[in-house]
């Protein structure tokens, strides 16, 4: 009841979180004070990296549980799933907030993030995603708000919100359908760049299907994590049912994907011993086949460990899929290999850490788990002793597992990058054959047109105007333009400017060659330039 002023106890995992935050803050400084070039391994050839691939694409997909479960409960009226709606919505809300936060790092000019809301381009997928994410985040905030209002016992507001809940949920499902699929549509515009194992006209459909699957899997994962962290009972029959739904979705994914590869005649690419082929197979086996097989066995589906493991595999598989689309599949055509920089990795880790910390805090202070909070004390102090388990401090387990998961994903990315470095070779200019060069040059010279003469402005003490003749200086058979025009044509301008300002300046310029040894001297034969030019 009474807040103590002592600092929260520093557990190992809290220390780890603090470390992540510190590293992340330093990276944030680098990103914003030294620019994207200094902070990331991005380049003109590889403009989208880990921040888009993981923080945005995976982030949005990982938050898909919100719309999946709220559709199941509010629209399909499967009331028994109600206890998991709130954690799902909380995860989704935090997920979207973090995606927007991560976007601030990736955008070159983050303070203009609002531009798409004002400057419209309805032809842009990014425009559509921007609007959907903005609207859906608002919807999620409203869906999430009853939890806050309940906490502060604001009954009237709750009643009003209650009325709008159905339209809100419908809107949320529609918006999610649109932007979950549109994240795949991003890549539709580059059939020549994305590797054919991943490029398909069905990208938006696949992104939507995998988001649904991931929504279910994340619900399972997050129920397990919070059950362990908050000492609640796991609703096993409920989660087993979600496991069944996941299985069905996995099968649909598998069939759709295989069928698509078959009909585009690129299925053999998956079995080629290439970088892409291997990672594609890994994605399919780890994320689709393995969990589908596991979930098909009733004993596994009904066991805690089995269900949790299958769900983790699904999550991993879809994270791999998003990274394969955004990174693996893009490397070959870009001609470079990409592995995220430490700065990129530490920002991503910081965001994942913040996510888990926020979830833990919200779950603790807000009535997210309905049974658990029925009799909850109104104001628990932060290091609340009742939650402490005598032997193992389990409270930060959520963050621990989150960090572990994030690390695993990042290791995967780095491994991808390292593998790539071996496989990829940067395009080198072919060694030109001298004879062919000559042949081509001769051919090109047929159309060489000698530039016209250039009249220089005359300075007051000049005996006669000077006209420079290209014809007299340039061998039309081998016009080595660059030997004089090293600086382009500013040469002419500065020369003429100098003549007007400082008489005799041209003598210096022309005198570089006209020194009496290479060619006649500018000091000796005045009329050769000043008179002859006039005569010509």
């Amino acid at each position, binding site marked *: 009841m009474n807040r103590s002023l002592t600092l929260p106890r520093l557990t190992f995992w809290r220390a780890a979180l603090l470390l992540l935050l510190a590293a992340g803050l330093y990276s944030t400084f680098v990103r914003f004070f030294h*620019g994207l*070039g200094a902070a990331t391994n991005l*380049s*003109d050839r590889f*403009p*989208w990296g880990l921040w888009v691939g993981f923080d945005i694409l995976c982030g949005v997909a990982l938050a898909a549980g919100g719309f999946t479960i709220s*559709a199941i*409960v*509010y*629209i*399909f*009226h*499967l*009331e028994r799933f109600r206890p998991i709606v709130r954690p799902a919505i909380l995860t989704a809300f935090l997920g979207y907030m973090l995606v927007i936060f991560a976007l601030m790092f990736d955008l*070159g*000019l983050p303070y203009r*993030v609002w*531009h798409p809301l004002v*400057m419209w*381009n309805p032809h*842009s*997928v*990014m*425009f*559509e*995603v921007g609007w959907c994410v903005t609207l859906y985040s608002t919807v999620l905030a409203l869906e999430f708000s*009853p939890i806050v209002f309940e906490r502060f016992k604001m009954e009237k507001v709750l009643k009003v*919100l*209650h009325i*709008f809940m159905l339209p809100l949920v*419908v809107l949320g499902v*529609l918006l999610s*359908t*649109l932007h979950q699929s549109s994240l795949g*549509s*991003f890549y*539709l*515009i*580059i*059939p*020549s*760049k994305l590797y054919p194992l991943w490029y398909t006209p069905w990208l938006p459909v696949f992104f939507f299907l995998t988001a649904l699957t991931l929504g279910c899997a994340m619900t399972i994962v997050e129920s397990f994590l919070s059950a362990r962290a908050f000492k609640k009972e796991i609703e096993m029959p409920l989660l087993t049912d979600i496991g069944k739904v996941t299985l069905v979705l996995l099968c649909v994914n598998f069939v759709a994907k295989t069928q698509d590869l078959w009909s585009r005649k690129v299925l053999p690419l998956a079995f080629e011993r290439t970088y892409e082929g291997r990672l594609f197979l890994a994605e399919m086996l780890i994320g689709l086949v393995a969990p589908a097989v596991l979930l098909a066995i009733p004993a596994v589906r009904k066991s805690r460990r089995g269900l949790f493991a299958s769900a983790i595999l699904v999550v991993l598989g879809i994270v791999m899929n998003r990274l394969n689309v955004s990174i693996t599949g893009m490397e070959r055509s*870009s001609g470079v290999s990409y592995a995220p920089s430490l700065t990129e990795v530490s920002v991503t880790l910081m965001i994942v850490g913040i996510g888990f910390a926020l979830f833990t805090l919200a779950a603790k202070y807000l009535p997210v788990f309905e049974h658990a909070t029925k009799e909850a004390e109104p104001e628990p102090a932060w290091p609340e002793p009742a939650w402490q388990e005598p032997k193992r401090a389990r409270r930060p387990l959520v963050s621990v597992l989150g960090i572990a998961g994030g690390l695993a994903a990042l290791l995967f990315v780095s491994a991808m990058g390292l593998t790539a470095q071996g496989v990829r070779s940067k395009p080198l*200019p072919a060694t*030109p*054959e001298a004879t*062919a060069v*000559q*042949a*081509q*040059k001769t051919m*090109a010279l047929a*159309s*060489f*047109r*000698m530039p016209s003469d250039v009249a220089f402005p005359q300075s007051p003490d000049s005996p006669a105007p000077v006209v420079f003749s290209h014809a007299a200086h340039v061998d039309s058979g081998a016009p080595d*333009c660059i030997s004089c*025009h090293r600086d*382009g*044509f500013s040469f002419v301008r500065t020369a003429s400017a100098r003549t007007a300002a400082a008489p005799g300046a041209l003598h210096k310029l022309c005198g570089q060659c006209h020194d009496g040894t290479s060619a006649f001297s500018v000091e000796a034969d005045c009329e050769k330039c000043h008179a002859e030019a006039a005569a010509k």
Partner: protein
Amino acid sequence: MISATQKKGILLDTTRCIGCGACSLACKERNRLPRTSQDVLSDTLSDKTFSVVNRKGPRYVRRMCMHCDVPSCASACPVGAFQKTAAGPVVYDRDKCMGCRYCMLACPFNVPKYEWGKTLPRVRKCDMCADRVAQGLATACASVCPTGATKFGTREELLAEARARIAADPKKYYNYIYGAQEVGGTSVLVISDVRPEELGFRTDLVHEPPAMLTWRVLSKIPNVVAVGSVLLGGIYWVTRRSEEVARAEKSGREGPEDGSGGGGSH
């Protein structure tokens, strides 16, 4: 308003190029860009170089923005910072750009470049000297080319000229105009004595604007929203009905569990 037939373009003829680099230098001057290398021929496109001439075996090939008729960058940009102007150039409005770099990803020719080294970066690329073109002048690169390897004119004229040059010397030219069909047509056209692949141009590009690939999906949104909301509403109604029926059948014995949920139903 300039009609479609008056759209400007640039014809590049590698058989005429002697690799003098005047085009690149003129481009640098016009755009006030710093020198990026000692040797013009070893330059690459960057935020400080919008046009290059590179050696490809025995010939020289220019790289610059192709100024697509239906540009992917303009379609991809969420804020409409890229526009295909009526006169032909594809131009960029730095005041709109928020730096998402989708244009760079979307461009089939990898043309837009980013100021990675700046804290407030822009996208940079050739704008076909839009201001000069608006005044009726040729682009800087075309105006300095000593051999006519870079020629400025209306796209129609240039297409006709390209065809004429190929027809006049079919032994010399490879019979293909790069940019006539690629990604739905580009304002920059390339002819050569060899296949475009040998010059480093991609020939596997679709012959329709890639922007259509995303637009075909985006244009379905109203359908998804309309059908989706009716469908979801319908499911809501049907499942609620069946729940009520079930409850009525069980009447008398009420289900004790009522989660005092924060959401709305019945």
